[in-house]
C-alpha cells in the first residue's frame, strides 16, 4: 500500500460509524479508536446523506468498486466465533475462496467465500443483525 494520506484517513474515519480502525503502510501504522461518548456524538453529526455521498467521489477517482450481496436470509457475522478476530477488516485483501463472513440460517453457519481476489473497501451490513436476500454486505475492489 502507498503511504497513507493521514488527513484523508482521519476524515473517512470521522464520517464512518466504525469504532476502531487499524491501517498499515510502509512508513507507519495508524490505530484509531473512538471513545464511547464520541461514538454517540459522531453518529448524529454524520448525516446519512454525507456518508452515502462520501464514497461516490473517491470511487470515481479511484478504481471501480463492486458490491458483494447476501445470497440468503440470515444473521450476519464477521467473526467465526464471538471472541475470535474477524475474517476481514476494511483494507484487508482476500483471495478467491477466502471466507468473508458467516450468515447463520436455521442454526447453520453458512460461510460466504469471495468469488475473486479483492480488497475490502467497506463493510456495509451491521454485524450480528439480520440480512435479507440481495442485501449489500461488502464494498470491494478487485485486485
Amino acid at each position, binding site marked *: 500500500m502507498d503511504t497513507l494520506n493521514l488527513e484523508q484517513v482521519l476524515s473517512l474515519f470521522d464520517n464512518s460509524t466504525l469504532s476502531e480502525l487499524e491501517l498499515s503502510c510502509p512508513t507507519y501504522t495508524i490505530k484509531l479508536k473512538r471513545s464511547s461518548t464520541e461514538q454517540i456524538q459522531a453518529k448524529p453529526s454524520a448525516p446519512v446523506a454525507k456518508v452515502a455521498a462520501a464514497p461516490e467521489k473517491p470511487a470515481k477517482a479511484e478504481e471501480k468498486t463492486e458490491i458483494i450481496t447476501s445470497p*440468503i*436470509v*440470515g*444473521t450476519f457475522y464477521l467473526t467465526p466465533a464471538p471472541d475470535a478476530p474477524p475474517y476481514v477488516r476494511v483494507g484487508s485483501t482476500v483471495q478467491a475462496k477466502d471466507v468473508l463472513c458467516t450468515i447463520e*440460517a*436455521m442454526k447453520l453457519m453458512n460461510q460466504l467465500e469471495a468469488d475473486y481476489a479483492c480488497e475490502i473497501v467497506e463493510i456495509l451490513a451491521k454485524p450480528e443483525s*439480520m440480512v*435479507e*436476500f*440481495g*442485501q449489500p454486505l461488502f464494498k470491494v475492489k478487485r485486485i
Partner: protein
Amino acid sequence: MIGSILIANRGEIAVRVVRACRDLGIRAVVAYSQADADTLAVKLADEAVCIGPAPTQESYLNSKNIIVAACLKRCDAIHPGVGFLSENAAFAKAVEDAGLIFIGPKSETIALLGNKVEARKAALAAGLPITPGSKEAITDLADGKLNASQIGYPIILKASSGGGGRGMRIVRKESELEAALALARKEAKLFFGDDAVHMERFLEQPRHLEIQLLSDGKGTVLHLGERDCSVQKNHQKLLEESPSPILSESLRSAMCEDSVKLFQELGYRGAGTVEYLVEGSSYYFMEVNARLQVEHPVSELVSSFDLVRAQIEIAQGKSLSLSQKDVQLSGYALECRINGLSAGRIEKFVMPSGPHVRVDTYLETGSVLSPYYDSLIAKIIIWAPSREQGLSVMQRALAEVEIEGVKTNLEEQKLLIASRPFTSGRFGTDLYAKVCDQEKKHA
C-alpha cells in the same frame, strides 16, 4: 396469541392477508422476491423482507429463507396464501418445527389430502360418493367388459401410472372396448413404462362445484355453501358463482352435509374446500383443497364471513362459536378473473367501483405485470340479491375496466357473461370453447 404474521406470498392474495392483519391489529411482514419489491403488498406491509430473486424456486418456494425471515423478524405465524407453499406438508411441518404457527391445516392433514389415493380412501370412508370405477387394473377384455357394465358407459380408460391427459381413452359402447383397451395399454406402456390401465365413469358435461368449509379443529365444522366454478379454460377457473344456478336444494344439502362429515372425520383445522364433479343429479368427490382459495371472496360475500380473519383466529386456537344455523347465506355473488395474456408495464389501469362491486388486485397504473408469476391481474367480485341482477352489475363493472399496456382476457369475459348458455345457467365445463373459440373463428 398471534401478534405478527409473515406472509409468504405475493400479488392480490398477499394484499388480502395484509388487510386482514390490519383489521386484527396484527403486524404484517411480507416476504417478497426481488421482482416484487415495488408491489402493493410490500408497500402496505408494516415490514418486508426480500427472500430471493424472481424465480419462484429461489424465492416463494424457498422455505428456508422464508422461515429464517419469519424467525428473525420475530413473527409468530406464517400465512402461506394460495399456491406456492400453501399445500406443502413438508413446509407446514418445518414451520411447526421452527416453533411458529402455520396458518392452515395440520401438516399431517395436508400430507394425507395431497395423496390422491389416500384422499379418495378418506372420502370413501366418510361415505362420500366417488367417481365409479375399477379400483384395480383391468386384467383382460372379459374383466374390462364386466367392470364397464357395472360402471355404465361411457367409461374412460386411464393409465394407472399416468397423468397429464396422456394414455386416456373414452369408450362409449362395448363394441369399442377391445380396440380401446389394446390402444390404451400400448400408450400407457409407451408413455409411462407400465401397461396397467383402470377404468372410470366418463362424465360428458360435468359441472365443477366446490363446498367452502371452516373448521376449528375442535369438532365444529361449518359450511358456507357452494361455489360453481364450471367456467374454465384449460382447467383454469375463469368465473365462479354462488349459489350455483343448477343445484337443487336437496343436492346442495347432501353435498354440504357430506363435506362437513369428511372434515369432521379428518379433524380438519382451518379453511378448506371439497371439490366435486356434478352431472345430472349425481355428484362425485374429486379432491380437497387444504387451503384458502383464489375465489374465496365469492363465499365471503354470500355468507358475510371474513375467511382470512377466520383462518387467523382458528390458528390462534379460537373455537368457532357459531353453529350452522347461524350461517345465513344470502343473495348471489360472482367473481370474474381478469388475467394478463402478455406481461409488461401497465400504462393505464382503471378498476370499477360503485354499488355491490369489490375489486381485489395488487396493480395500479405504472405497475409491471411480471412474466415470472401467475397472470392474475384482478378479481372483480359482485354481490346482488339475485343472479339476474348480479349479471347486470358485473356487466356494468366490466364496462368500467380499462387496462392498457398488456393484453387481457377482459373482452372474452364480457362475451362469456353475456352468452346465452351462461345467462341461462345451463352449460358445462366446455363453455369457454363454445363461446370464445367460436368467436375467434368468426373474427
